[in-house]
């Protein structure tokens, strides 16, 4: 799942011209045999790992990744090399690498392609990363719905073990490496890094309070590095070609390339790997083939469902990098771009979005557990057309009070899209006020004390209170 962008910067960098780009991570995904170890070895696979494991100083590898400016591809965009640098040393405990393949952010389906079609690319990245952070055990956590991905990755781990790339004394060195694949079972919250760790530990996917960050105390209370599948897959290429090679693409602060997932009202939805910093409108038109016939753009969700919406005017100004989107009040997130056309009912869209977050809230923190429920119910009132005057203000109030008050960012992930819908599509909320006849309801004393009931009473007159008692629920 996506997290809050690190530091929003107001200035939007100058857009780069559109240039064709040869994919790096997704280059072989159309080959039917690309998931086999034979195919991977034939294209020079595991050579980079063989050259560096047991030979290169781990600090050099960390420095290379730090120099490359690689940023986490899971959503938060935190610099990967810097994260590795935070790893607690000399604790006497084992160090773990946890690869996040939960990919639960709606609109994102990039890791699926790496896992299903090129799993050895990920494993080579895991081997190099484990050598760089001196970890002997890597966990790869996949969402339970990735059935083919799990089968292919398990087969890949088995094949790599047989070749001596994973196991005791890999590549004939004294370095041991265990790789364990764990399947999730349908919980969005396990995409949050500490939620994923809780799940690997055999519990419900409850996120943990940070600090301590996983780099200090993570999996089994040991120092742990958590990285996204795409981030780890990038490591091989950066180590192979060097930091400067990676920096030839992208912007100064967002170097490199990234896999974007395009869905919604475009002619050619799909997965495209492009250099960071290209214009979003070019991406939609050149790769996605533009909007479907007879439709115009109403809004774009730029980085998975939790990213605030962009209006068509903002899309014109937007480039695909972390700073540009942060400057526009949104985020690049996990790179799931969804185009909404002019026929989309925004009230249905926001209701659907809020239902998702209410369903996926783990229930640990009150602002999130209750807040997402409030957002869903109020969004449903607008969707069904029986909202009361002031319900939109209440939505804004609930959303504002959810942000930054919970253990993880799921509350923010739910509140941010709501705030952006309110900001850009407020007239559509107001249009639904009192559109459909209000549903008759037995009121209780409990209703009297809620803000919604007070406001309803102001609008519709005082309700008749039939039953009194705080425990009553209607």
């Amino acid at each position: 799942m996506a997290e809050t962008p690190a530091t929003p910067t107001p200035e939007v960098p100058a857009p780069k011209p559109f240039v064709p780009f040869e994919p790096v991570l997704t280059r072989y995904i159309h080959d039917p045999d690309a998931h086999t170890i034979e195919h991977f070895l034939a294209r020079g696979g595991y050579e980079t790992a063989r050259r560096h494991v047991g030979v290169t100083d781990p600090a050099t590898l960390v420095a290379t990744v730090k120099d490359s400016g690689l940023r986490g591809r899971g959503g938060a965009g935190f610099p990967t090399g810097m994260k590795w640098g935070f790893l607690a040393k000399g604790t006497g405990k084992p160090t773990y690498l946890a690869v996040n393949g939960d990919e639960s952010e709606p609109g994102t389906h990039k890791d699926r392609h790496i896992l299903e079609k090129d799993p050895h690319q990920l494993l080579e990245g895991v081997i190099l990363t484990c050598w760089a952070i001196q970890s002997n055990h890597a966990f790869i956590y996949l969402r339970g719905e990735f059935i083919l991905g799990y089968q292919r990755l398990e087969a890949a781990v088995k094949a790599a073990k047989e070749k001596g790339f994973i196991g005791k004394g890999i590549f004939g060195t004294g370095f041991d490496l265990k790789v364990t694949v764990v399947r999730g079972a349908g919980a969005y919250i396990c995409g949050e890094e500490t939620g994923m760790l809780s799940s690997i530990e055999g519990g419900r996917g409850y996120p943990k309070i940070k600090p301590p960050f996983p780099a200090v105390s993570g999996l089994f209370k040991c120092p742990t590095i958590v990285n996204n599948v795409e981030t780890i897959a990038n490591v091989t290429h950066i180590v192979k070609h060097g930091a400067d090679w990676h920096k030839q693409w992208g912007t100064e602060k967002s170097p490199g390339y990234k896999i974007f997932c395009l869905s919604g009202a475009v002619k050619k939805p799909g997965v495209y790997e492009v250099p960071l910093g290209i214009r979003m409108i070019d991406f939609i038109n050149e790769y996605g083939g533009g909007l479907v016939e007879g439709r115009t753009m109403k809004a774009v969700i730029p980085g998975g469902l939790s990213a605030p919406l962009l209006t068509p005017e903002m899309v014109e100004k937007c480039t695909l990098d972390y700073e540009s989107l942060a400057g526009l009040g949104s985020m690049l997130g996990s790179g799931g771009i969804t185009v909404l056309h002019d026929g989309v009912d925004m009230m249905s869209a926001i209701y659907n979005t809020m239902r998702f977050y209410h369903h996926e809230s783990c229930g640990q923190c009150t602002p999130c557990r209750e807040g997402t429920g409030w957002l869903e119910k109020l969004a449903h009132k607008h969707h069904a057309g029986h909202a009361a005057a002031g319900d939109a203000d209440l939505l804004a109030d609930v959303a504002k009070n959810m942000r930054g008050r919970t253990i993880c960012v799921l509350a923010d992930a739910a509140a941010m899209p709501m705030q952006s819908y309110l900001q850009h599509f407020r007239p559509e909320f107001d249009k639904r006020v009192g559109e459909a006849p209000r549903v008759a309801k037995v009121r209780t004393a409990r209703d009297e004390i809620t803000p919604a009931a007070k406001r309803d009473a102001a609008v519709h007159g005082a309700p008749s209170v039939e039953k009194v008692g705080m425990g009553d629920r209607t």
Partner: protein
Amino acid sequence: MTAKTLSPERLRQFHDWADEYPNKRSMLMMTLRLVEEEFGSIDDEGMRIAADLCGVNVAHVQGMVTFYTHFKRPAHGKHRFMVCATLMCALDGNTDAALAQIRAKLGLQPGQTSADGLFSCEKVECLADCDKPPVLQKDNEHFCSMKGAVLDEYIDSLLAREGKTPADYTGAGAPAPVATDLRVAVLPAAYTFPGETETGARRFDDKNPHGPTVPEPQAPRTTAIPPALKTPLTAPVAGTPFRNPGASATHDHKGGDHHG
């Protein structure tokens, strides 16, 4: 009635994992998958087996199974349809189209199981293939762009495999589907949770949360264990009471939280 057990192959798989995982509790996610594979779904007995193997209490396993929605439960149909209902699939009525087709063929609304237990249908959240809506999973099979003739043909093929026709589910006099009941059975009153005292307090070592639970000094029993709810959500299966894993001598509880 003999108690269910995992097959030797799956038990071997479990013990292979035991070499990889730092403790038994962390194998729970994958153990539940083994149970799901073995028995087709995770029922009360399956939860007890997973709890025994991983050295945790049954209540913890119930908590896991009800938290993670992808585990298959006995109330789900033999063929479990999961239709993605999140925004990217729901745009332009794709989800609704798929659900309408399932309803037309099988008479099922989301959240229902057919009376014969063969089919169930549910709305789920994002299945991560957003460029090809609507996305549908049937148990362990994943499908994209699943609407129109493709979906109809697929449902027909399943019906043919089961020797059924749509009329068996939607025709006049066809039995009405039932709501898919995913609740877990209440634990019997006599059940003592491993690691819990008789008064219900749990001893927990903060410094070593995954290690064995510190035994509570034996004190006279002061509070009666509350009786089970008057109306159990699902009646426990007769003859297979929950066993106290702490009392079992057949399983090794190293790393678990059992209490003498």
